[in-house]
């Protein structure tokens, strides 16, 4: 019956052809196009890891792993040596200082915003935190170098013009919004029934916050701390400007120190010729940095999954 040429069949065939053509043109091609686009993100990650590993491999052909984990760093000397420990030391110290600023202030701000504040103050403070989070890090770097360091120098006369204390503090300030908003989210998601229960037993607001809400939100809060540490480790411009480029291995925070990120920035903006050991050392340091932040993120994911309290 399909083969008979009747007006009905003609129309039916036309519709079929039309649908078939459309399928060919768009519904078959578009998913492939989008798939290719989506693959770019995978290629980027693979690319990052491959670049870091191959170039770091070149580096380790020339520099032994023992030298890499030593305390002597002099990449531009006549007899260059590439010990990464001074850089790790600078990174850890500056991140520690940052966390000593960010955790207390961030957590108390989160407790205030989530438990104590009226909706009006909240709607006033939240945008300010968002603005702080949106300021480019280079601006914080300028702030650390031209404002915080001179003030600290008056308080601590032995402070050097470039030191690790001032960028550490400013980095902490930069991270406050992140700690505050992530912890606040965690505390907000604690069900109200728990709070009501504690109030019913005669608790004050503070007791409800510290003894009920905080323990219940602990997984989210801890993972916000770990993410903040990861952010501090990867932060570049503040330390590049304000902590200088001294490659000495020291624990004195009033001295200049270089972080891993600072090393990468200083060494490329100098003239690291392609193919030299110095050039490849960038990728070895970059690989260490990548591993550090990657581990931190895994820990954060683990904490928020493992210790999540379900209600």
């Amino acid at each position, binding site marked *: 019956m399909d083969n008979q040429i009747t007006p009905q069949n003609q129309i039916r065939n036309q519709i079929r052809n039309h649908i078939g053509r*459309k*399928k060919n043109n768009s*519904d078959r091609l578009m998913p492939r*196009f*989008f*798939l290719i*686009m*989506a693959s*770019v*993100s*995978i290629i*980027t990650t693979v690319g*990052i890891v491959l*670049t*870091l590993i191959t*170039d770091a491999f070149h580096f380790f052909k020339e520099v032994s792993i023992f030298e890499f984990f030593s305390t002597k760093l002099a990449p531009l000397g006549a007899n260059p040596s590439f010990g990464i420990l001074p850089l790790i030391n600078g990174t850890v110290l500056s991140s520690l200082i940052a966390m000593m600023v960010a955790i207390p*202030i961030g957590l*108390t*701000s989160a407790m*205030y*915003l989530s438990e*104590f*504040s009226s909706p009006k103050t909240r709607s006033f403070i939240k945008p*300010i*935190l968002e*603005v702080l989070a*949106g*300021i*480019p*890090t*280079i*601006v914080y*770097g*300028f*702030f650390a*170098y*031209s*404002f915080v360091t001179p003030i600290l120098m008056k308080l601590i006369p032995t402070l050097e013009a470039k030191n690790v204390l001032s960028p550490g503090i400013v980095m902490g300030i930069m991270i*406050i919004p992140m700690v*505050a908003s992530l912890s606040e989210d965690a505390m907000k998601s604690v069900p109200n029934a728990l709070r009501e229960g504690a109030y019913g037993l005669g608790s*004050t*607001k*503070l007791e409800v916050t510290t003894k009920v809400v905080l323990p219940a939100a602990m997984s989210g809060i801890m993972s916000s701390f770990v*993410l903040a540490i*990861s952010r501090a*480790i*990867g932060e*570049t*411009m503040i330390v*590049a*400007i304000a902590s200088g480029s001294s490659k000495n291995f020291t624990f004195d925070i009033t001295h200049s120190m270089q972080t891993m990120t600072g090393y*990468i*920035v200083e060494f*490329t*903006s100098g003239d690291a010729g*392609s193919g030299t050991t110095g050039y490849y050392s960038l*990728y070895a340091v*970059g690989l260490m*940095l990548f591993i550090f*932040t990657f581990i931190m993120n895994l820990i954060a994911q683990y904490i928020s999954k493992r210790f999540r309290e379900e209600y």
Partner: protein
Amino acid sequence: MDIRSEILNDKGINPMKSNNPTQVKVEINRQRINRRVLINEILKKVFFASTLFALAVLSVLLYRIIAQSIGWLDWHFLTSKLSIFPEKAGIYGVIIGSVGLMVVVIPVTLILGVSTAIYLEEYASKSRFQNLIKVNISNLASVPSVIFGLLGLALFGRFLNLGSSILAGGLTLSLLVLPIVVVSSQEALKAVPNFLREASYAMGAGKWTTIRKVVLPVAIPGILTGAILSISRAIGETAPLVVLGIPALLLKVPTSLMDDFTALPIQIYYWTLDTVLTPEYANLAAATIVVLLITLFLMNSIAIVIRNKTQKTY
């Protein structure tokens, strides 16, 4: 003396002589409650003060920067070229460099980011591959920006031989902000209610037609908001560009995408570093920061306006 008798002594009650145990108990309880309420009130103020700390820092930061830029930020500063003499220096070439970066970043991130989001939300099944892309994107978002600079240096700078051109810088920044665009576009697509799609299918429309004519028009405001926010992140990003090897003092104004360039945050960086030699550079850096912050503020305001004007509820 134990705490109990101490409290009672304060109140003028002698625990030894008082022969009303209820009165003693009530008095002790009231003391304890008062103390707890007092601590509550004090710590509430402490928490509030620490919340205000952010506000204080923001005002000091803005005040310092604006105060330092006064007298330096004028029409001449915006329209003349860089110079080693602070009085003559202007940021015309720097602004052109930043605009050039955006010319690369905006189309690349929009096309790549929105396509990835459409694939993940509309086409991909719950397969392993889709999961892989998802994990990848969340990991990409947490890689330090300086590492993207290393990737750009190896891939675009050395391998594709783009050097430190606008194109190399723009592509590096695009990869950096790609995860933000993908995640925000995904959110926007998720917010499109399913009955719109089903209605479209019921009318006989194919998948792509549905996406193009039904889903995207509804999701576009959300996608745009995310895109603007990620672009404002790209404008302020310094580290990846410094790693690419941007020259510290570039007197030539870039004319094509293959030219060397310098951008607002990079110029701030170099001027800040050089304040040791020439103190006036701090004023130039502050003036450039004001230009950068005003740009970011305008972009964020646009994003908020778009979000508020086009918010629909289904």
